[in-house]
């Protein structure tokens, strides 16, 4: 935890400077958190709701933040949990089975007006969506966000070894998917 982050946390915990520090926190992390959430739930509107919920949770609970982890890790953990809860809710409401979540998200991708990738990127995203949720999160964090295993380990509370294995299997599955359906 660097000095700036410590200062930011101290300001967030102080009632006098909280508003200003919170604005700074939002500016610093909104984009990274947005893209992290977006890659999990795919849909922009859902991502927007979840991102707001994440920051509201931070606002409400900042005083109880124990500083065991960095602010970044804490924020990413909240965002990941909120996104997974959202998928669970979707599953309950639409009676979608866990295996069909990938199909549900694929449909969401196909109808997404904010998707501007080419055919190869669409195919690649569809391949990623076939992965189980947690494996997909590991793949996204490693491949797109280029996070270190140690950082991912802190966010997901999973051992580095398990993460490496998860990423390895994810890559294999994506390759298989692209091989089977290269159109």
């Amino acid at each position, binding site marked *: 935890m660097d000095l700036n982050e410590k200062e930011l946390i101290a300001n967030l915990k102080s009632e006098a400077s909280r508003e200003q520090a919170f604005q700074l926190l939002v500016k610093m992390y909104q984009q990274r958190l947005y*893209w992290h959430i977006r890659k999990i739930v795919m849909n922009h509107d859902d991502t927007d709701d979840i991102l707001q919920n994440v920051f509201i949770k931070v606002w409400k609970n900042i005083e109880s933040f124990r500083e065991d982890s960095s602010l970044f890790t804490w924020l990413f953990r909240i965002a990941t949990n909120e996104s997974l809860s959202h998928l669970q809710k979707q599953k309950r409401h639409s009676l979608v089975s866990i295996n069909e979540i990938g199909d549900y998200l694929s449909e969401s991708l196909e109808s997404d007006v*904010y998707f*501007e990738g080419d055919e*190869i*990127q669409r195919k690649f995203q569809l391949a990623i969506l076939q992965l189980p949720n947690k494996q997909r999160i590991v793949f996204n964090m490693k491949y797109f966000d*280029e996070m270190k295993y140690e950082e991912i380990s802190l966010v997901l509370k999973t051992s580095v070894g398990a993460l490496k294995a998860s990423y390895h299997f994810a890559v294999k599955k*994506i390759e298989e998917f692209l091989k089977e359906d290269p159109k």
Partner: protein
Amino acid sequence: MKEKNVNIEHLFGKLKKETPFRVPENYFETFADRLNVRIQEEKNSYYKRSLFIYFKPMMAVAAILVLSMLLIYIPITKLLPSDSGNIVQNRSEKNVNDSVSGIPAALISNFSEEQLLAAFSASNDLDSKTLTADNLAVYIADNYSSYEILTDN
């Protein structure tokens, strides 16, 4: 087959790491403002919830008192004879009792002095010694109909 694998690996390796998604225009520029609105709403609802939590025990006690009153009062009023009915009945009985020899006292006051004197002089069996309010009322009741009593005045 080998050539196909090479192509796939080549494709996977060359895939752009930039996200293929985009966001609505000015989304990130306006996000903080929208978030502030949400936080204000949350704060307001929190204060409302706090007030409700504060007053909840008092409201519960008040509700229990009202409910107990209703549970006691309604069966009592349903099961016991009505007091108001008794009062009305008593009042009508009192009016009857206020009458003299069956004629309501109010009717006697309707007679003029001439009527009363004429009645007095015409009567053989009514002398000054026995002239009392009761006797006079009995006489009037015997000699005049209710219609005459009411219309002559």
